[in-house]
């Protein structure tokens, strides 16, 4: 298992290099420059020219790549053009925000997705099932940004239950964090809840049709015992395999959700960086995010192996 983890980590390195090359390639094609962003909407073209010189954006792209890679090997991701701070510092400051949001969404996804799926499977073809699956279907069909907008109007404006956005650090004010993060997490998680509920239900139905479930029943096991002791572990195996994907989608979705809810996370940071042509930020940030995703996927694979004895005991 340890060797496997190491091998997976080693495989991640060339992928990261490819990631950085691809992002370089794309950014090379992107027109516009960060000076315009920095200068703001009221800047005159004159301001712009001077600002560009100031920022050293006149260097050729190749030079910029060389500088970037040289520094990367020194563990230095460079300075953000727009924020004027080291990329690494910014990324490290912002990631906990996105990660806490992603974890909240993930918890929502797992708790709601699993329970809706399990309940639907247990009440297969009954009205509970119908309602649960309609909910799941709507979940996977509604655009998350739209859901966010509608939720703001509903929960913040009309009902006044939740703040319209922003971010409260968890350790300063857990209750405040919870209130502020609920809508972003929910709009982020909605689609995943739907997907997971559907996956769970179909897997659960499949598992419940398995011979070993019949065996469990033949032993006189109660329905709860059948579901939670015998079926659940088997349902969790495919569920865990999609966790990596779900996490990736949650982090990806954070770009737009963080923008709408004014959450200063890594998604909004990178979205802004792309729109603002903040090249060092994009490069460094993407490598960081890709690395996090790759590591999470490795963790998920290890977790999968741990859950499934057929893979584990080998």
């Amino acid at each position, binding site marked *: 298992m340890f060797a496997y983890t190491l091998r997976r980590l080693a495989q991640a390195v060339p992928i990261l290099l490819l990631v950085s090359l691809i992002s370089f390639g794309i950014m090379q094609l992107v027109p516009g420059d960060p000076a315009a962003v920095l200068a*703001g909407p009221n*800047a005159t*073209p004159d*301001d712009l020219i001077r600002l560009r010189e100031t920022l050293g954006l006149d260097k050729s792209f190749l030079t910029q790549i060389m500088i970037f890679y040289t520094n990367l090997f020194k563990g230095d991701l460079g300075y953000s053009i727009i924020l004027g701070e080291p990329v690494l510092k910014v990324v490290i*400051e912002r990631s906990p925000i996105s990660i806490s949001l992603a974890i909240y969404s993930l918890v929502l996804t797992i708790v709601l997705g699993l329970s809706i799926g399990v309940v639907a499977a247990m009440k297969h073809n009954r009205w509970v099932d119908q309602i649960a699956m309609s909910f799941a279907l709507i979940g996977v069909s509604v655009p998350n940004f739209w859901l966010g907008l509608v939720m703001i109007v509903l929960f913040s404006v009309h009902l006044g239950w939740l703040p319209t956005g922003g971010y409260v650090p968890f350790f300063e004010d857990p209750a405040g964090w919870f209130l502020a993060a609920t809508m972003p997490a929910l709009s982020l998680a909605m689609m995943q809840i739907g997907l997971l509920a559907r996956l769970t239900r179909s897997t659960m139905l499949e598992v419940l049709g398995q011979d070993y479930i019949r065996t469990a029943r033949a032993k006189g096991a109660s329905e709860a015992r059948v579901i939670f002791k015998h079926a659940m572990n088997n349902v969790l195996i495919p569920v865990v395999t999609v966790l990596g994907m779900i996490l990736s989608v949650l982090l990806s979705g954070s770009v737009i959700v963080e923008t709408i809810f004014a959450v200063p996370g890594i998604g909004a940071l990178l979205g802004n960086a792309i729109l603002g*042509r903040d090249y060092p930020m994009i490069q460094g940030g993407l490598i960081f995010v890709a690395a996090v995703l790759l590591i999470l996927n490795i963790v998920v694979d290890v977790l999968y192996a741990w859950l499934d004895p057929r893979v584990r005991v080998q």
Partner: protein
Amino acid sequence: MTHRISKGRLRSLLVASALALAAGPAYADICGKVGGDLVLGMEAKLGTLDQHVNAANATRNVAMNIFETLMTRDDKMAPILDLADSLDVSDDKLTYIFTLRSGVKFHNGKPLTSADVAASFDRYSRIGVDRSALGSVDHWETPDDATFKIILKEPQASFLESISASTVPIVIIPSEQANAEATRLEAIGTGPFQLDEFVADSHVKLKRYEDYKPNETLDGLSGFAGRKQACVDTVTFRTLAEPGARLAALETGEVDIVEDVPTLSTERIADNKDIVQTQLKHAALWLTYPNLSEPPTDNLKVRQAIQAALNLDEIMDAMSDGSYSLNPSFQFPGQTYYSEAGSQYYNRNDPEAAKALLKEAGYNGEPIRLLTTRDIPRLYTAALVMSEQMKAVGMNAELVVLDWPTALGMSVNETKGWNFFYTGWITVTAQGGAQSLRNLADPSNVHKPKDNKSDAEFMKQFEILSNSPDLEERKAAFAKAQERVFEQVMAIPFGVTPKNQATRANVKGYVPFFNTRVSNVWLEN
């Protein structure tokens, strides 16, 4: 003999007596109440507080509560001293001697000296966005801790206007930061508020600077200057990019002040007793300028045809949802240089004349590309409506919609691929005649005139406008220059929109301005 400009000469006596009476806490006399956290909902994301290299409103709105300048603009946008007590200008107009206000300290506790001023000017002249403002400077000196002396190479009538310009102000920073690279400035100033917490794109928190030394030559705020006091303990500028969310936050009381309330919402929240609305009537001038190097807009007749075709009421109505005023000038009404010269060319809405001019120009359906962005919805709407009006008279108008960085970059770097570019001028217009026409004058012309030389007649008037010592002469030159802009269709002003702001009813002392001023604002229960 020297001219001595001293702030509030008349008032100084009054102030002196007021000072004698002020025995209690320093802020008690202005603030109706002290304490609390004032929360502002901002539209734009804020990336940096380095005021030297940043022209964005978002930055200025926050940074100008932290930093102060040697000289700035008052509520009429006239130059006024701020960190200096007095200014002596030599008769030959080559030497400017500033005497610094005493007792001013930076947020790090260090007293302000002329060395800091010199360092700030050093950094600005190296990387400041408007460093051309210091183009006529030969050098500066610091004869003593309280004296800062600027020596010019040649006299420049608009020199004080230049160094007091508020678009990218020359804020005073501690001397040890003179070498800070662009965008990496630490936000340490002398203002009434000091930086507490800054999360880019999210929020900035400021707290009262207890050792702040107010400028006591005025009673209260005047433009960027004045007597400032931090009534609230902290100020939080929160970015709420989602317009619906921003106003909702005001309605729920999450934020206390929101700038740029959508027109439609102003009607809806009019009945809300918890919210008070204020308006800066003339906040932004919206305009478009042509590319004089790209056919067919290199042809004056074509430009005139377009000018004649436009129904500016419709354009302004659409872009502002009905909250606007027409404005046949590059200045706001009420400003010193305001003139309606050339207004016969403005808002003609005369399709027949346009068609005739087109025919005369020999226009043959060449595409006319309107370069705009969706990032600023008003610019997009303006271009969209304008394209419809152009199509109505038989012009082949095409929208080129790019994101703002790309669009602005293209308008600067390219002479091909676009015929009209759209923008809005806020501070540019506010700062007077010369500033507002500077973008059409050499060397910073934006309309890509042939051989990069702007119109000769216009330039002649612009020189007078910039350099004449006589105000009446400058005003006449502005009028003539503006008329020339209309005649030559070097730019087409659309109109002016107000800035609608709203505060919670318990926010007192807040006065709308081009910039967000949180001094002298207090929260009642």
